[in-house]
């Protein structure tokens, strides 16, 4: 968890994006973000990554972005998931898709398993200081890097951020949701994959 005194509710963070994404954007969500996104309503180009292999959402987003370079691909990932595949930050910037936006919602905990702190969060660290995701994104070479802690500020800037030249990294400081549950799959995964591929290949822009 990045050291920030201000945090926005996860639902507000997700809602601001949900209201402003374009209809032809692909949006991949995982864990708590997937739960909130599905509650708001998922469209045919949305991929709630349930069931998942934790941490792979950015890599799936990279693949879609490379296959469909004229389509914007947005990934909402959690901090615990990000820590599982930190190397994917470097993989993304090596390939450098200008159409990929990676949004990291950082609450410092493994929320759906009972809010245990991640190794990156201050309470779990010997020095009591959270790791710096912003520094990692800059060092990895993301073209555009942003951070928001206030929901209204994020909502005001969503469209500008999404329009930036990618690959884009956005850190959102969010509060954890006590007692929240993991997302449930909205339907058989294989059928959803077939539908998404069919939709994406029919609408190649």
């Amino acid at each position: 968890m990045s050291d920030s005194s201000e945090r926005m509710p996860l639902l507000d963070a997700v809602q601001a994006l949900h209201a402003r994404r374009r209809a032809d954007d692909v949006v991949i969500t995982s864990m708590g973000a997937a739960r909130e996104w599905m509650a708001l309503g998922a469209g045919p180009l949305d991929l709630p990554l349930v069931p998942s292999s934790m941490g792979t959402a950015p890599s799936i987003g990279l693949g879609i972005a490379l296959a469909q370079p004229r389509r914007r691909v947005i990934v909402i990932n959690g901090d615990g998931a990000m820590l599982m595949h930190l190397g994917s930050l470097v993989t993304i910037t090596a390939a450098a898709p200008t159409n990929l936006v990676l949004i990291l919602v950082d609450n410092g905990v493994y929320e759906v398993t009972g809010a245990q702190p991640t190794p990156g969060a201050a309470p779990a660290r010997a020095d009591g200081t959270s790791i710096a995701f912003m520094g990692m994104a800059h060092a990895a070479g993301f073209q555009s890097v942003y951070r928001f802690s206030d929901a209204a500020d994020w909502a005001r800037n969503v469209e500008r951020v999404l329009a930036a030249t990618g690959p884009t990294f956005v850190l959102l400081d969010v509060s954890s949701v006590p007692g929240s549950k993991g997302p449930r799959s909205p339907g058989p995964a294989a059928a959803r994959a077939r539908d998404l591929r069919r939709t994406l290949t029919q609408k190649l822009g």
Partner: protein
Amino acid sequence: MFSGEEMATLFTSIGITHVVSIADSTIGAWHPAIEESPDLRLVRVCREGEAWAVAAGLYLGGATPLVLIQCTGLFESGDSLRNVLHDWQLPIFSVIGYRSYLNQETLPGDTCLVFTEPVLDAWRIDYRLITSPAQLDEIRAHYLACRESGKPGAALIAEGRA
């Protein structure tokens, strides 16, 4: 056993568009030819678990990816391939280097020789063991059969002395 040019030609001939890979001493020697091929894009990943997920995204986006890793990376990437091949049932084909297979007399202690094939069986990956240069067409045939059936599959390439 195979040159980079042979592998790049093979991949192109079966319609592969992206090769998602981490180098080992055999696979890495193929990378330059893959990069030079105008019909292939090499996507370098940092860890093999990423490779399956990147390939999954490529496939969902309409591309035809192939995962190219060593068997040690197969061991590392179990949960990711489980999700991609079995939860989402994506027919991703892989070419996997079988470390030390051709060096069994000089390097008999490499446990890759113990675990590679049982792990492929455990993950229910239909694979063909390739131990001779004469088997290049067997890779093509197995790929085409997997594509026809919509199933994942692998070619397990013996590494070591050519």
